[in-house]
């Protein structure tokens, strides 16, 4: 169990991604899907990267997924785990896995989102074993 956290850089969101960060600050993981083609994409954009439609909408994800890949960053003041988590909604997002024994983590482990407040009023969507 790692009780300490690294310093997290503050996100610099593009204008069309701001609602994602408004969502995490409220404890919601928001994704974007296209109402024309139905596809969910990540990271969220104003224009659907499947069909180029502007008819994209935000919706709340379940916050559950599995680890697609990860790495324990050892050469750092505080070790941390970078990971790709594949969400139940079918998209994969970069994140950190926190509050667990790093040495027992494995690909395909079930994880759930936790919202981790950082500087600047931001809250990061991180994951922990489910």
């Amino acid at each position, binding site marked *: 169990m790692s009780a300490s956290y690294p310093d*997290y850089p503050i996100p610099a969101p*593009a204008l*069309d991604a701001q609602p994602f960060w408004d969502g995490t600050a409220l404890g919601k993981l928001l994704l974007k899907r296209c109402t024309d083609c139905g596809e969910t994409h*990540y*990271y969220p954009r104003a224009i659907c990267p499947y069909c180029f439609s502007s008819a994209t909408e935000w919706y709340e994800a379940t916050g559950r997924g599995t680890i697609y890949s990860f790495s324990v960053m050892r050469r750092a003041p505080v070790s941390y785990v970078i990971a790709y988590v594949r969400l139940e909604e079918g*998209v994969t997002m*970069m994140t950190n896995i926190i509050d667990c024994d790093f040495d027992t983590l494995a690909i395909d482990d079930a994880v759930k989102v936790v919202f981790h407040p950082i500087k600047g009023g*931001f809250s*990061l969507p991180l994951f922990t074993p489910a």
Partner: protein
Amino acid sequence: MGRACKAYIAGAFEHPTRHAVDQSVAQLHAEVARGALADAGLSKDDVDGYFCAGDAPGLGGLSMVEYMGLDVRYVDSTDTGGSAYVVHLGHAAEAIAAGKCSVALITLAGRPRAAAKATLPDYDNDTPDTAFETPFNQMIVNNYAMAAMRHRHEFATTAEQLAWIKVAASHHAQHNRHAMLQKVVTVEDVVNSPMISDPLHRLDCCVVSDGGGAIVMVSPEIAKSLGDRCVKVMGQGEAVKTTNRGQVDLTFTAGVKSGAIAFEEAGLTRADIDMVTIYDSFTITVLITLEDLGFCEKGQGGRFVSDGNLISGVGKLPFNTDGGGLCNNHPSNRGSMTKIIEAVRQLRGEAHPRVQVPDCTFALAHGSGGLISTRLCSATAILGRNDA
């Protein structure tokens, strides 16, 4: 004579420095340009096309055109990170074939070691992806480590197999008096070196060095006048792979496409290639690239690189016979220019005698630019000896 080609590499030069304390970046660019032109037997005034990437100071090559006192009618500053110079090689061949220029100069130089800078560039909020990666403390090494971890999961690739890539590079670097790391290492040395980001150890990582390199490309007509040290550009391909809208797959790179395009253009097969130079930012980069280029099946890279198969004079596919980025140098944190240069040495028969591949007729040089687990531009060049 032999096969026809669009363009030749007439000159190549690698800067001998690995630590440029007293030289400016522009100066390093000019020094490698001078070296490559001298190697070609051409002068600065012959250059009518200039190619550079983001390591060149100023806007789109203009500052370097000015600094060097060039007068060009063609300029290309395409930046795809470390693969940019193999991209430029292809673009220059096309420009020469189209008559837009006839002597193309491509330069790379930098001093990240002297400046103590080997990090990701700073992005502002106009870059759409950065907010979804930077806050999670993505570094270059843990980005590559995630690809290595997934490869291990899917194909049971071991740390020892990855280590063989570094071992092979070190066997070559012992003969390169300019190489930063000239000591031969063993598989045990690699797997016992400190873990940086699982599963990558310190010796799975390339060096940080200053320096640079340049090549000069010319039309077939000019090549004929310069003699048999000119090397043929047989084929080139480039492709980009991304996080694909959230459908992330870390088991392959855009090398699958860039390699296929280059081989098709060259009219050659993998069996025709006598040696390869592959951008080796990390051992995993080489392993996945060898699979993607078709030298072995997907997932078999670990077996392919084992037991010295990449060591010149020992294995079937000699790679990075100058020691590569893992041992020799990594100027400006961009590895593909030096890959072109070592392939040229081999095709001229001018590599170190202890690593020279006998009767080297065709060589493949491959660059990867960007980051393997997010967005990466792969570029592949197939080069041939003057009489190929």
